[in-house]
């Protein structure tokens, strides 16, 4: 296993508000990682820096040894918190969009997954419910053959049964050499698919351990430990 993501002494602030403070994190390839932390802890900012939509202020960050830029965008598949497709687009057109943008997009995979979810490629985005829109976007993102998937709150708006389906989609589609970073509050739902968890607090990593280590050491689920570490 090799280091896929390497952040060291990473700083980012919005105006006077410091969001990431000398953050250090290494992620190996072939891992599914939960990025967990309370609201405002810096999870989304970190994901945005890794995806290249935000620039760091200082520090080092690389993916497969490459600085963040065009080359890393080719190998990073990013699911933002919010959907960004125009409401008037048909699902089919979003597939065209991804096919145009990304060389590693596998249209057949995406169409199969949409079929299994019974989402018609002829529907318009505005005709879909919030949860279904989220599913479409996740299908697109997971249908890229990327090295790193960044999923920011992938299950925020979907019901528990669909959450299970989404997790299965993530598991079945993922290539063992790639890594997935999932930011979420629904810890107990994702816990069993994770290798590792990273706790973020005030812009720093306060814990990075495997799920088994946590259960072994603390006799607690990740959800239980999270509630303890971040008790208000």
């Amino acid at each position, binding site marked *: 296993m090799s280091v896929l993501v390497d952040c060291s002494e990473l700083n980012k602030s919005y105006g006077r508000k410091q969001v990431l403070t000398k953050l250090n994190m290494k992620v190996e390839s*072939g*891992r*599914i990682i939960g990025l967990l932390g309370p609201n405002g802890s810096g999870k989304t900012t970190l994901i945005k820096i890794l995806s290249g939509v935000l620039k760091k202020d200082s520090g080092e960050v690389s993916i497969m040894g490459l600085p963040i830029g065009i080359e890393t965008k080719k190998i990073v598949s990013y699911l933002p918190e919010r959907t960004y497709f125009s409401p008037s687009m048909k699902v089919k057109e979003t597939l065209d969009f991804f096919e145009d943008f990304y060389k590693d997009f596998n249209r057949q995979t995406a169409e199969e997954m949409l079929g299994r979810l019974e989402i018609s490629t002829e529907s318009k985005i505005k005709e879909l419910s919030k949860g279904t829109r989220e599913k479409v976007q996740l299908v697109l993102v997971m249908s890229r053959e990327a090295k790193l998937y960044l999923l920011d709150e992938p299950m925020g708006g979907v019901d528990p049964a669909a959450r*299970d389906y989404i*997790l*299965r989609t993530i*598991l*079945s589609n993922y290539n*063992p050499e790639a890594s997935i970073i999932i930011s979420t509050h629904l810890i107990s739902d994702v816990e*069993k*698919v*994770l*290798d590792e968890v990273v706790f973020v607090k005030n812009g720093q990593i306060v814990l990075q351990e495997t*799920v*088994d280590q946590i*259960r*072994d050491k603390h*006799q*607690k*689920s990740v*959800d*239980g430990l999270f509630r303890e570490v971040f008790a208000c």
Partner: protein
Amino acid sequence: MEWKFNDETPIYLQIMEHIKTQIASGELKTNDKLPSVRELALEAGVNPNTMQKALSELEREGLVYSQRTAGRFVADMKNTADDLKESLAVQHMKEYLESMGKIGYPKQKAVELLAEYANKNSF
């Protein structure tokens, strides 16, 4: 058998126990082929690395064996199922006595109550 996981113990240990129960109950028999790591991981809804770890541990304990390209199989040991039954039974009994102890029943009383309950109720 459905896959269910508790919050206290590592998931790979729970997977091991699940497969052991399948062997003990006869659901899995000697030389039965196990599905691939990927298939099993999907079925249980767990991370493939976790499933891999559980299977490697089972292999280390001698309950399953792998053949290079053909996959993993349930080991050929006459007494496996009996031994497993016994060790799983010990575990369940221990859990029962501990839970009863926590709510204030001494061991002897717990055993009596269980016998009484078993006599009254048929399953």
